[in-house]
């Protein structure tokens, strides 16, 4: 009996101390990690999507709430005027979620471009969705475009061999366009 109590006490103590150490370290690095992810993962993509912006887009970001979900909004400015916005959305691809950054010109409601942030598609086949060849097509399209692939009756060229991957990107864009009016309204209200 004594041995059991000793085992429980020792293991609990070790776990407790470790948990304490980790939460301390986490608190110390959390801000830097978030900043690193912004700079290294989303940052470069946002800059490509809003390539005509003159401000520091990563610093001009804010979090808004749409339908109860937080959306991290990047705002591109020309001079001092907000000109375009970009935010991330998700679609289901062949190998997993595809995360897409979609940029909008809020003046005439067109896409300034899209960039794939992360995907798990087959290398060499589905991974073509991340190439310029595919993503450049969306540049300048109106938000009213039917963002489904041509075989499904839409307007987007699919990639041969990567049907599901292209559909996933379209789904992400549709999800993004769907909340665009609300995002725009909230942004202009502020």
């Amino acid at each position, binding site marked *: 009996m004594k*041995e059991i109590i000793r*085992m429980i006490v*020792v*293991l609990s103590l070790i776990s407790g101390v*470790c948990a304490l150490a*980790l939460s301390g*370290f986490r608190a110390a690095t959390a801000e830097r*990690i978030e900043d690193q992810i912004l700079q*290294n993962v989303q940052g470069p993509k946002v800059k490509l999507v809003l390539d005509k912006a003159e401000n520091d887009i990563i610093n001009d970001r804010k979090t808004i709430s749409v339908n109860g979900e937080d959306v991290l909004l990047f705002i591109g400015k020309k001079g001092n005027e907000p000109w375009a916005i970009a935010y991330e959305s998700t679609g289901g691809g062949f190998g997993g979620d595809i995360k897409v950054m979609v940029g909008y010109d809020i003046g005439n409601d067109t896409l300034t471009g899209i960039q794939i942030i992360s995907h798990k598609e087959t290398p060499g086949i589905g991974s073509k969705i991340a190439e310029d060849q595919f993503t450049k097509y969306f540049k300048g399209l109106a938000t009213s475009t039917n963002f489904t692939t041509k075989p499904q009756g839409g307007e987007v060229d699919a990639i041969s061999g990567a049907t599901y991957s292209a559909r996933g990107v379209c789904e992400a864009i549709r999800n993004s366009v769907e909340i665009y009016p609300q995002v725009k309204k909230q942004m202009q209200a502020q």
Partner: protein
Amino acid sequence: MSVFKEFTKGLWQELPPFRLVLGLCPVLAVTKSATNGLGMGLAVIFVLTWSNILVSALRKVIPRKVRIASYIVIIATFVVIVEMATQAFFYPVYEALGIFIPLIVVNCVILGRAEAFASKNGVFASALDGLGIGTGFTISLVVLGGLRELVGAGTLFDVEIMSAVYRSHSFSFMLEAPGAFICLGVLLAIMNAVSAPSSS
């Protein structure tokens, strides 16, 4: 002298991937380049040394029956610290190594040293043991990664070594998983030939 031996044995006699043939999963997976091998090796040195020190310091406190669980908790703590530190300060390394940083927890080299050495020896000897084995592991990873990078991509630590003609027609096969096995096999064979020429 004997303390010094605890350090040097990790460099040849008990060189983890080649001599003990332990911890092969990260060895094969991350050695696409010398830089990746070095990053992984440094992470392992840190985790191994500190987990050895703690396990050794607590060896009289931890009851035998829960020792493995205790070791895993201690190792996991240091691994998560390494993961957060690389994410915060060396983001490109974090991206390159990805899932293999958290997987250091189940690297049997580390648990093996805790169980076979640190739980039976003093703190100082255990620290040296961890440093030695970790250094040996790092050297192995850098050698393997360097070899694969040189043959497969024509570069070493991202510096272009081979001519442009070679680099555009390199054996990219060496960067794939089978290349890792072949490289490891060749290195193992060389090491065996060097250390035991008479037995063959």
